[in-house]
């Protein structure tokens, strides 16, 4: 009866390890608990003891290979060496080489396809090979949807189609952080035909996905809420909108008020405008406010640099210019970098309340939502007020609860009484 040697749980959030060295060779006798193999993770190096006594019948993963938790490392056989090989748990393993003693059915006259270094595309099917060669594609850049991650003809056809239809990317290839207001149109994972449809992830989407997860996995992220009565802002807008547009050549929107209110609050609560860099907290004395803009390729967040120096008109102009550039695909990398705080408006889509994801490495993001008239109690009476829920997602490692709540209250106060913006209160 044979025993499997599997990679044990290695620790919180540690998912893989590298095989550093085998202490025993195939065929050696081993005792229970005798150290068999050394595994290294980015947190710790461990020696794996033998789960049973017997003979090290098979080494499935060689030195230098990377394995996932629970992957099959090898087999311990009975003392007489008779071993029934268990099949490695297919879906979970990332092992690049197939288990060594795999019967080659006949000595193939043509050399066996070289085990490719990228997992899964060891042998390309004839149709796939033809398409790849004819189109000069790199198989290691195509992710396979076939069995065990193999590239199938459909995968290559999809790549060719995407290439043919590819417009120059609206947003540059540099990592673009996107707050949670973006609805990931998820492609359900597929098997065959009918009930599902496989759509290859674009590079942009992949990058966005990675950044979102990084933000979630790094920050101690949570969200606090408040609500703001936008009556005063709306009154100012309706009173002066024509004059504003006449003088400044740009419409007076809500965003400029929000940016100003946020800057006021950020000045009072510096932690929300700061970031963690290694062991240090970096407080910034300038306010680069990122404003999320929707395009048909996804959400992008251009940054208003030194927004503290911009007037309301200046803010509106800059936002408009960015919006146009985003739609035209003219945003530069520089436009998207350097933000210290982000504002995202899910209200344009109808969202009433949400929990935005931080735009790493920033420590705070304000979520604006739909302005909805609600019955509110004002001076003991019920009135219809134009209300908006505000959300502040923040990194609790650097911003504490009191600061986060106070920040939102300050934003609310500035918006409900815009005179405070004028008086810098």
């Amino acid at each position, binding site marked *: 009866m044979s025993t499997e040697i599997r990679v044990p749980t290695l620790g919180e959030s540690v998912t893989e390890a590298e095989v550093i060295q085998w202490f025993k060779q195939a065929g050696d006798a081993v005792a229970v608990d005798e150290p068999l193999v050394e595994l290294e993770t980015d947190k710790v190096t461990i020696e794996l003891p033998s789960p049973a006594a017997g003979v090290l019948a098979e080494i499935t993963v060689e030195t230098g290979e990377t394995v996932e938790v629970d992957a099959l490392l090898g087999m311990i056989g009975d003392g007489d060496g008779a071993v029934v090989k268990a099949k490695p748990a297919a879906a979970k393993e990332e092992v690049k080489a197939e288990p060594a003693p795999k019967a080659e059915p006949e000595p193939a006259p043509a050399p066996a396809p070289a085990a490719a270094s990228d997992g899964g595309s060891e042998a390309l099917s004839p149709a796939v090979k033809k398409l790849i060669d004819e189109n000069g594609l790199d198989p290691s850049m195509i992710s396979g949807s076939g069995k065990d991650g193999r590239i199938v003809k459909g995968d290559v056809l999809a790549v060719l189609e995407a290439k043919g239809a590819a417009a120059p990317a609206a947003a540059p290839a540099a990592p673009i952080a996107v707050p949670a207001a973006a609805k990931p149109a998820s492609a359900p994972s597929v098997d*065959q035909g009918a009930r599902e449809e496989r759509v290859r992830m674009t590079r942009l989407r992949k990058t966005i996905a990675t950044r979102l997860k990084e933000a979630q996995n790094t920050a101690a992220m949570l969200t606090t809420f408040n609500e703001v009565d936008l009556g005063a802002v709306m009154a100012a807008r309706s009173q002066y909108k024509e004059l504003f547009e006449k003088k400044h050549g740009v419409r007076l929107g809500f965003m400029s008020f929000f940016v100003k209110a946020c800057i006021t609050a950020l000045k009072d609560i510096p932690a929300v405008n700061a970031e963690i860099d290694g062991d240090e907290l970096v407080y910034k004395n300038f306010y680069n406010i990122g404003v999320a803009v929707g395009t048909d390729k996804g959400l992008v967040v251009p940054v208003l640099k030194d927004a503290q120096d911009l007037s309301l008109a200046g803010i509106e102009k800059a936002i408009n210019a960015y919006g146009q550039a985003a739609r035209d695909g003219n945003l530069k990398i520089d436009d998207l970098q350097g933000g210290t705080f982000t504002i995202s408006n899910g209200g344009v889509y109808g969202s009433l309340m949400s929990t935005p994801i931080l735009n790493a490495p920033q420590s705070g993001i304000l979520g604006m939502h739909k302005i909805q008239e609600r019955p509110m109690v004002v001076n003991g009476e019920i009135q219809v007020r134009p209300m908006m829920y505000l959300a502040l997602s923040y990194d609790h490692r650097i911003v504490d609860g009191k600061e986060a709540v106070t920040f939102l209250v300050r934003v609310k106060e500035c918006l409900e009484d815009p005179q405070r913006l004028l008086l810098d209160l």
Partner: protein
Amino acid sequence: MSDTFDLIVIGAGPGGYECAIRASQLGMSVACVEKRDALGGTCLNVGCIPSKALLHASELFAETDHFEKMGINVGKPKLDLKVMQSFKQQAIDGNTQGIEFLFKKNKIEWVKGTGTLKGAGEVEVALTEGGLRTLKASDIVLATGSDVAQLPGIDVDEKQIVSSTGALELEKVPGKLVVVGGGVIGLELGSVWNRLGSDVTVVEFLPAILPGMDGEVAKTFQRILKKQKFSLKLGSKVTGVEKSGKGLKVSIEPAKGGDTEVLDADVVLVCIGRVAYTEGLGLDKAGVEVDERGRIKVDAHLKTNVDGVHAIGDAITGPMLAHKAMEEGVVLAERLAGQMPHMNYDVIPGVVYTQPEVASVGRTEEELKEAGIEYRAGKFPFTANGRAKANQQTDGFVKILADKKTDKVLGVHIIGTQAGEMIHEAVTVMEFGGAAEDIARTCHAHPTLSEAVKEAALAVDGRPLHM
């Protein structure tokens, strides 16, 4: 002799015995409860195996019709049915004894008797030799299979009115055989007796034989059966069977109702389907849920609603095929051992072992159309295949259905000699998500019937070479 095991399997048919053997290979102690005096279940004893033996023997008997044109002069062969039946019995014994040997080799204890679930972890066996024995295990697999579906109002006596079981045992070739049910079993057994000299009439409720098969395949096969002198009454139902002297009178009428027609018969074979068999298991008392068709309810992991109780094969939902049960048995054993195998229900082949054979895997054209999936079809007849022509066995064709955009193979249907063997190339390609072009660009030996599969793949692209 212990009464406690890691696993108890109730039923030693294909599903049960494979589950038991795999579990034992993975280190579990296994007991298998089987009340028949031989292992192998329906398949080995009264199903797949005996029918294949008779099909093979009767096929060779009928082949002699073609000997003269090949210059082999033996005259008309004489049938000794008794000897043919003992040939069949040898197939059964060889196979069932083989399973017994495998049980011994894998140290699986065969507990002879009827097993009843006494709740999670406990099975009480009413032993064949008398007495009761209680077995305990942390996991129990119900693999009790299926039984013949009864036609209301018609009593099967296994002598004149027979089920598939009786049809395999007939001691005389019936002059007239009426087969009720035009599915796989009816056509196979009908073929056996047709070749040995019976006049066979098949009565089928639906408008086509082999319900569920690709429509084009069913139509082609119908024509072939008619050439083989089968009489087909489609869209008809049987309203009664009466004794008339030494024979029987079968009343049939159109499925929607209409005039009655009466058929004479010496033997009537009732094979309208099979139903899950769970008698004596005590499912009620044990609280195991069954569905409206009496099948044991299981989740995606083959678990019932009772912890530690699982079920596979004909006793649960899904195609009633031995190999489906076998796959489930193996997958379940591996899961119980902590592994994570998968079972792909979309790529299970089905075979009709007539001559020519019919084999298919994946979707039919009708299913693809209904699902709104755009596809291309590539068809290649055996009349254009060198080997088939050389052997003068040119009935049938290969049809491959591939996704219009990705060329992924979605279904393959074959009528022809050896279709049941040829289909596996398609199953393998589909298991790997391969494209029709992949089949077309794979070297196939010449001259083989399998070249027709390659040509059909080329035909998907509109460019067969031999047509």
